[in-house]
C-alpha cells in the first residue's frame, strides 16, 4: 500500500515538472498576443486556472464535510483540511492576479465586481474554517464542528455571488461586459488550448499538494498517538 502511494506521488511529481515548463512555453511564447489588452492578457491563464482550483477545493471541502457528518472518518477529516489549506493558497493567488489584472485593464486595484468579491468572501470563509480546525479538542469534535461550518459556507457562496451581482447592476450598469478575458473578438483556438492546459496543470498541482498535505496530517496523528503512548508509559 505504501509503495503504491509513494509511486503515485513520484508519477505526479514527474508529470508536474514537465507540464509546468510546457505551460510556461505555451503562455509566454506559443499563445498569440491579444489585440486589445496586449501581453497583460496572459495573466488570464494563471488567474482562471487558480480560480478554478480555488472553487474546486471548496467543493471538495464541502463534499468531505457531508461525508464526515454522515459517518465520521479520519481520512475525510484530513482530506477536507488539506483541501481547505490549498484553497486558501489558490484563492489568494486568484485575488492577487485578479487585482493586477484590474489594475492593468481598468486602472484600479480593486473593483466591486461580483466574481472578485465572491472570491474575497470565499477567502474569508476558508480562513474561518481553518480557525475552527485550530481549536483544541478531540478530532471527532473538531471534525463535526468544521464539517458543519463547511456545509454552511458552501451554501453561502452562491448566494453571495447572486447578491453582489444584483447589487452591482443596481449600482452602476454592467461596465465590463460578459467574459473577463475576451474584451475584443472571440477566443482563438491557441488561447483555448493554453487555458485548458493551464487548468490541467494547476489541477495536477492541486492533487499533488493535496496528497502531501494529507500525508503531513497523517504524520500529525501519528505524533499525537505516540505522545499519548509515551505519556502512559511515563505515568505507569
Amino acid at each position, binding site marked *: 500500500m505504501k509503495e503504491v502511494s509513494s509511486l503515485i506521488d513520484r508519477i505526479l511529481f514527474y508529470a508536474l515538472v514537465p507540464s509546468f515548463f510546457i505551460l510556461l512555453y505555451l503562455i509566454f511564447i506559443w499563445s498569440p498576443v491579444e489585440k486589445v489588452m496586449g501581453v497583460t492578457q496572459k495573466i488570464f491563464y494563471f488567474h482562471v486556472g487558480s480560480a478554478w482550483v480555488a472553487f474546486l477545493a471548496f467543493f471538495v471541502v464541502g463534499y468531505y464535510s457531508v461525508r464526515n457528518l454522515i459517518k465520521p472518518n479520519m481520512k475525510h477529516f484530513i482530506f477536507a483540511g488539506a483541501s481547505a489549506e490549498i484553497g486558501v*493558497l489558490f484563492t489568494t493567488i486568484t485575488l492577487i*492576479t485578479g487585482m493586477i489584472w484590474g489594475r492593468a485593464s481598468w486602472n484600479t486595484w480593486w473593483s466591486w465586481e461580483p466574481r472578485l468579491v465572491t472570491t474575497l468572501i470565499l477567502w474569508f470563509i476558508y480562513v474561518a474554517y481553518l480557525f475552527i480546525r485550530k481549536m483544541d479538542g478531540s478530532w471527532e469534535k473538531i471534525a463535526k464542528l468544521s464539517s458543519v461550518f463547511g456545509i454552511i459556507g458552501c451554501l453561502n457562496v452562491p448566494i453571495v455571488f447572486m447578491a453582489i451581482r444584483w447589487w452591482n447592476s443596481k449600482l452602476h450598469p454592467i461596465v465590463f461586459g460578459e467574459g473577463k478575458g475576451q474584451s475584443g473578438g472571440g477566443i482563438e483556438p491557441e488561447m483555448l488550448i493554453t487555458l485548458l492546459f493551464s487548468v490541467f496543470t494547476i489541477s495536477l498541482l492541486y492533487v499533488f*499538494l493535496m496528497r502531501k498535505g494529507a500525508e503531513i496530517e497523517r504524520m500529525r496523528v501519528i505524533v499525537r498517538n505516540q505522545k499519548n503512548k509515551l505519556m502512559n508509559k511515563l505515568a505507569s
Partner: protein
Amino acid sequence: MNYLFLATSVVWVLIAGYVVILGKRQKKLQKEIFQLEEWNSEQ
C-alpha cells in the same frame, strides 16, 4: 508587460512558499516521530 511580470512572480512565490512550508512541516514532524519512537522503544 510589467504587470504580467508582477503577476507571474507573485504566483510562483506563493506556490513555492507553500511547498517550502509543507516541506518544513514534514521534516519537523518526521524528526518528532523519530524522537518519540526512540523514547517509546527505550527500556
